[in-house]
């Protein structure tokens, strides 16, 4: 893996992290909230269960104290039951409820439900079984100090299991209670015998002497909440990752599609270019065969005519015919030279450089000084021409051919002028050679750049100049065109060169 690849990978990972960071934070917050909500729901359900049990137990306490006790005491007063008779099994509400609860637990167990802890915890019980532990003691104190608090609940951990602990103060000690929980000597004889210690006596009215505390296991519920939250979170994370993955996939596919589309476009462009090149090549072959064959016909034709005249002794036109043959051979030679030249433009590429066009113009005009002087043409060069990045030698040929073209097609202009200048066209430097010569009809603006195309058969040159210019400019990835308002209005040959 190259350094570049690693950089790309790290960049991608960072983007994904940035993309993922926010949703992950949101996800965690949602999960915590969800866990809390589900747990609370289960805890509330557990609490309701506890309250139900407590209320049911309280009902039993009430029944014992309000219904059974009066009957007992009345029976005692009437002597039906001995004054010193006491049996907690039929007399003590705390005993009865405790035992009743243990039966209830047995039933729960049989039915496959978890047991529920229940205790009537007191600081000062007759029966040590009901003695409050340290925690329950603090709760009793708390309820007595804060009469407005009616319940206490807490999730506690015992032996690695979670329980909902719930406590409410037991019934406030009333005068009826004092009968058994007052001074020892005032209590029924049976109680005094049964509970020989100090426990359970000397209570005062108006205080909470005990709490009812219940514990139900909620480990399963908490686990369920946790599993639900986890499932939900995992689901959301998987969905999110799928979305992310899908998005990433889409990006990748889009990129690939883009690349493919570009490739197709590129290929189409190359095919179109190739087609143009092929057409050009065909035209070139056609032109070459036509234009090279033409002088051969002339040479063969006139040598035949000469032969005939020679036989007849007709010498008059022989000199003229010989000249035609010679000229045709020369023309052929010129054509071949031109062909060689134009075919090298594409192949031999000199390195491009920043060319000072002012100096280049000086050189070209110096070379053309003779023909310009002969035709009495006034040449103006726009000062401070911008430099051009091109093949200097080829650019010389371009400018030279364009100026020569202007000289050749001056026509009968009495004040012949040529201007070399530059103009800016949306940031591109357009160089031009402008003349006030014969001008060119719009319909010929394209084919004048064709190989050996000449608008005037009698004009000088083989008709390669503009074709050569076009070829050189094409090699420079530039454009060349002519602007002319028509015959007699002069012409302006413009060209651009692609930057770099």
């Amino acid at each position: 893996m190259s350094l570049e690849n690693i950089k790309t990978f790290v960049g991608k990972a960072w983007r994904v992290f940035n993309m993922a960071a926010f949703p992950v934070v949101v996800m965690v917050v949602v999960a915590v909230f969800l866990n809390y909500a589900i747990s609370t729901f289960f805890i509330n359900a557990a609490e309701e269960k506890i309250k139900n049990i407590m209320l049911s137990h309280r009902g039993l306490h009430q029944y014992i104290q309000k219904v059974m006790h009066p009957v007992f005491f009345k029976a005692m007063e009437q002597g039906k039951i001995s004054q010193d008779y006491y049996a907690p099994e039929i007399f003590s509400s705390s005993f009865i409820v405790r035992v009743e609860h243990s039966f209830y637990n047995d039933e729960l167990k049989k039915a496959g439900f978890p047991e529920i802890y229940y205790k009537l915890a007191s600081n000062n019980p007759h029966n040590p079984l009901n003695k409050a532990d340290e925690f329950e003691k603090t709760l009793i104190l708390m309820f007595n100090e804060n009469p407005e608090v009616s319940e206490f609940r807490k999730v506690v951990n015992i032996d690695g299991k979670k329980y909902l602990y719930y406590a409410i103060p037991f019934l406030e000690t009333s005068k009826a209670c004092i009968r058994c929980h007052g001074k020892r000597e005032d209590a029924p004889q049976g109680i005094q015998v049964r509970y020989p210690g100090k426990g359970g006596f000397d209570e005062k009215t108006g205080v909470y002497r005990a709490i009812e505390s219940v514990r139900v296991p909620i480990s399963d519920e908490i686990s369920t909440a946790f599993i639900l939250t986890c499932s939900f979170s995992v689901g959301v994370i998987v969905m999110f990752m799928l979305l992310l993955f899908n998005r990433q996939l889409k990006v990748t596919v889009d990129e690939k599609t883009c690349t493919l589309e570009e490739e197709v476009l590129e290929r189409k462009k190359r095919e179109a270019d190739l087609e143009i090149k092929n057409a050009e090549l065909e035209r070139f072959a056609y032109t070459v065969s036509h234009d090279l064959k033409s002088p051969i016909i002339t040479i063969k034709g006139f040598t035949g005519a000469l032969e005939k005249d020679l036989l007849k002794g007709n010498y008059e036109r022989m000199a003229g015919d010989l000249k035609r043959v010679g000229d045709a051979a020369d023309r052929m030679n010129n054509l071949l030279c031109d062909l060689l030249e134009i075919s090298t433009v594409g192949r031999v590429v000199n390195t491009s450089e920043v060319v000072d066009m002012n100096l280049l113009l000086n050189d070209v005009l110096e070379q053309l000084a003779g023909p310009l002087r002969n035709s009495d043409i006034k040449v103006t060069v726009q000062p401070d021409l911008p430099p051009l990045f091109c093949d200097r030698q080829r650019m010389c040929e371009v400018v030279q051919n364009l100026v020569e073209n202007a000289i050749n097609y001056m026509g009968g202009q009495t004040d012949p002028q040529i201007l070399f200048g530059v103009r800016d066209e949306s940031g591109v430097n357009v160089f031009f050679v402008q003349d006030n010569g014969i001008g060119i009809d719009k319909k010929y603006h394209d084919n004048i750049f064709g190989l050996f195309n000449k608008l005037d058969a009698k004009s000088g040159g083989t008709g390669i100049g503009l074709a050569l210019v076009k070829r050189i400019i094409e090699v420079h990835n530039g454009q060349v065109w002519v602007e002319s308002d028509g015959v007699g209005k002069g012409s302006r040959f413009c060209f651009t060169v692609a930057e770099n």
Partner: protein
Amino acid sequence: MNGEPLTILLVEDNPDHAELVMRNMEDFQVANVITHVEEGEAALDYLYGRGKYADRKQFPMPHLMLLDLRLPKVDGLEVLKEVKGNPDLKALPVVILTTSDAERDSAMAYEYHANSYVTKPVSFDEFSKLLRDLGFYWLAWNKRPW
């Protein structure tokens, strides 16, 4: 032959080739008048009797046109298309006499209803024979449209 002069319009941009054609035609005396123009535009001007060819007496309707294909400005095919598309001119026998033996050129020429397509022979003897045969065929054997 009604005593009417037979006219050939030669459209040829190469002056040497034009000279060869005219010399051979004169040698065989197939036509009374050969008018030579170098450009396609001039040929059309002649046929339409425009500009300097307005005088029909001096420049009568030709009985045969020998047309080169590669001409400056308006090229031979365009001249042919114009002639064959014009109801007044389309009967004029047009023989394409060209250097090109490119298939595309002959196909296009026949597409535009050229009456005949011949390539200039390189051999001088063949060139002479071709022109003699052409002249005899189109001006003597062939029933002329006018």
